[in-house]
């Protein structure tokens, strides 16, 4: 069993509340950090090798070191809690059950970055979690961890929670900042990056919930110790939210050395696939990353066991690999219809496109319509090529990565499951007799072999 850093105390009764959290060793990292130089804290985070846990995997310490520090201009830390990537529900778990670990990590980060006012931007639907966080912030403040002159250090920090209102795009950091300023969530053109011009035009760091929580063990144990866990550039632990057709959906903290096969089949993790069904496919890192058929998921093209880490999951590029992404692990069993599943994702991206860039605004709508028509048995062979063509024209041609995120799942579905799309074209009567794609198959037609 791997080491747990974030969820170690998750099951301690009452850990949601300050007294228990503190008794279990909470806020030690703040005590330690306040005695350090801010630049040394950034250095520890660099040494830890921590990479952004929101999806992009950018080194956190480096992101922090880019923060501009012009005289007389406030700097801000903003926590990205707009968790909206289908398959991803790990930040919710941390905030709902161990809210103080996020607040603790944010105080340390605020001190390191010189932010005297820090915000948590949370997705609007997490209404009750907003209450939990606000209560935890109030407890932290009552106990002298927030407010003026924290623990006599001379450092002031206020923390607030801001609710979004239903927009996936606000998980993109510049859209998030627009939203926090009370505007539509339209991503900004970069550069300037938020580190130079962010919230209200001031230097800003935006970090994911899990990233900020990971700062706590990094400061407590030191960056070098943290970097010893894991493998290669995948250091520390990662939260995986597992869902779809598995026996034990939920949140797992892994140390990134275990294999994908063990993660799916071991009772310690997903516990295998219900009703003895076969594994058909998996999206290992949230809906935006490429779907892989079972054979490529479990073994890389080189024939090595694929591991649950950044490098191994992306081994082979998009031709035969995928990505770690946000850690949203979606498993599809042998009965599931790839066309229907891809359609729901295309519908999602059409709904969530902010509409600023034409390739994404128009392209996501076209992809949704074509996929629906294929799924209903009304498609033509040429539609499959048209779909491929459209996704190619979205990818890389938009201001923000939502365009890529919409294109990749469609591309990967065609790349690996083209026969299934063709089956829909060749068997229209079977598509029409049933409501749902997943019922198209009395006999599963696509169980990957070799």
């Amino acid at each position, binding site marked *: 069993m791997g080491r747990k850093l974030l969820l170690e105390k998750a099951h301690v009764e009452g850990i949601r509340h300050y007294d228990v959290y503190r008794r279990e060793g909470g806020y030690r990292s703040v005590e330690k950090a306040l005695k350090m130089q801010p630049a040394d804290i950034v250095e520890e985070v660099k040494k830890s090798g921590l990479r952004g846990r929101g999806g992009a995997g950018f080194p956190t310490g480096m992101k922090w070191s880019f923060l501009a520090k012009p005289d007389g201009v406030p700097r801000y830390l903003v926590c990205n809690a707009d968790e909206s990537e289908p398959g991803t529900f790990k930040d919710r778990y941390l905030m709902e059950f161990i809210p103080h670990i996020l607040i603790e990590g944010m105080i340390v980060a605020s001190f390191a970055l010189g932010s005297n006012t820090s915000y948590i931007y949370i997705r609007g639907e997490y209404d009750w979690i907003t209450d939990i966080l606000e209560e935890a912030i109030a407890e932290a403040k009552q106990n002298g961890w927030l407010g003026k002159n924290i623990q006599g250090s001379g450092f002031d920090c206020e923390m607030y929670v801001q609710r979004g209102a239903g*927009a996936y795009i606000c998980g993109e950091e510049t859209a998030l900042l627009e939203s926090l300023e009370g505007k539509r969530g339209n991503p900004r053109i970069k550069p300037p990056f938020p580190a130079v011009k962010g919230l209200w035009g001031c230097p800003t760091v935006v970090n994911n919930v899990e990233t900020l929580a990971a700062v706590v063990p990094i400061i407590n144990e030191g960056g070098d110790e943290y970097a010893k866990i894991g493998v290669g550039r995948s250091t520390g632990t990662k939260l995986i939210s597992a869902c779809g057709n598995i026996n034990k959906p939920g949140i797992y903290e892994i140390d990134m050395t275990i294999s994908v096969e063990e993660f799916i089949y071991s009772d310690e993790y997903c516990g295998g696939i219900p009703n003895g069904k076969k594994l058909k496919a998996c999206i290992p890192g949230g809906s935006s990353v490429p779907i892989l058929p079972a054979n490529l998921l479990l073994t890389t093209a080189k024939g090595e066991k694929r591991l649950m880490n950044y490098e191994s999951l992306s081994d082979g590029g998009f031709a035969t690999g995928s990505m770690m992404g946000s850690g949203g692990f979606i498993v599809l069993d042998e009965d*599931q219809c790839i066309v229907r599943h891809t359609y*729901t994702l295309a519908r999602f991206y059409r709904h969530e496109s902010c509409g600023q860039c034409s390739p994404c605004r128009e392209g996501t709508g076209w992809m949704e319509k074509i996929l629906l028509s294929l799924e209903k048995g009304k498609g033509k062979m040429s539609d499959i090529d048209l779909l491929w063509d459209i996704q190619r024209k979205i990818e890389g041609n938009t201001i923000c990565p939502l365009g890529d995120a919409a294109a990749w799942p469609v591309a990967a579905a065609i790349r690996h499951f083209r026969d299934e799309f063709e089956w829909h074209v060749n068997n229209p009567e079977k598509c029409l007799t049933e409501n749902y794609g997943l019922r198209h198959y009395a006999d599963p037609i696509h169980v990957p072999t070799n």
Partner: protein
Amino acid sequence: MIQFNDKTMLRVNEIIARYPVGKQKSALLPVLHLAQVEFGGWLDVPVMDYVASLLSIEPIEVYEVASFYSMYNLKPVGKHLFEVCQTGPCMLNGSDDIIDYIKQKLNIGVGETTADGMFTLKTVECLGACGYAPMMQYGKTYREHLTKEKVDAIIEECRAKAN
């Protein structure tokens, strides 16, 4: 006359105080949430105009935000709003069946409200509860691992509240 009650007004001022002076527009999303709760579950134009005046911004700045985010209702909704997730992971676990069942049970389509104004059914995209699918948002919280029986119980719970 549209006016927040005193308690809400205190909350509004608390929220505005979170931002630097002159950046009160940042309070727009949270204040629209408060307005939607206080003024009947949706945002009518006079309500949005009132919010604009509170924050000293133009009404168009409120309209463009209210029309962007899916949680703001720009049309009246029933007393009880069911927002059922239909994205991939929920679909894999039978959300299509749950949506069909609610449609049939309440005799309404997606986006419609029952004749008695009690229930509105909406479909939504991923709410971040993929491991507890199928699910829906009802009020402040989520209802997860939905089955037909659970849907029946939720509808009963709503009807009981009305009596």
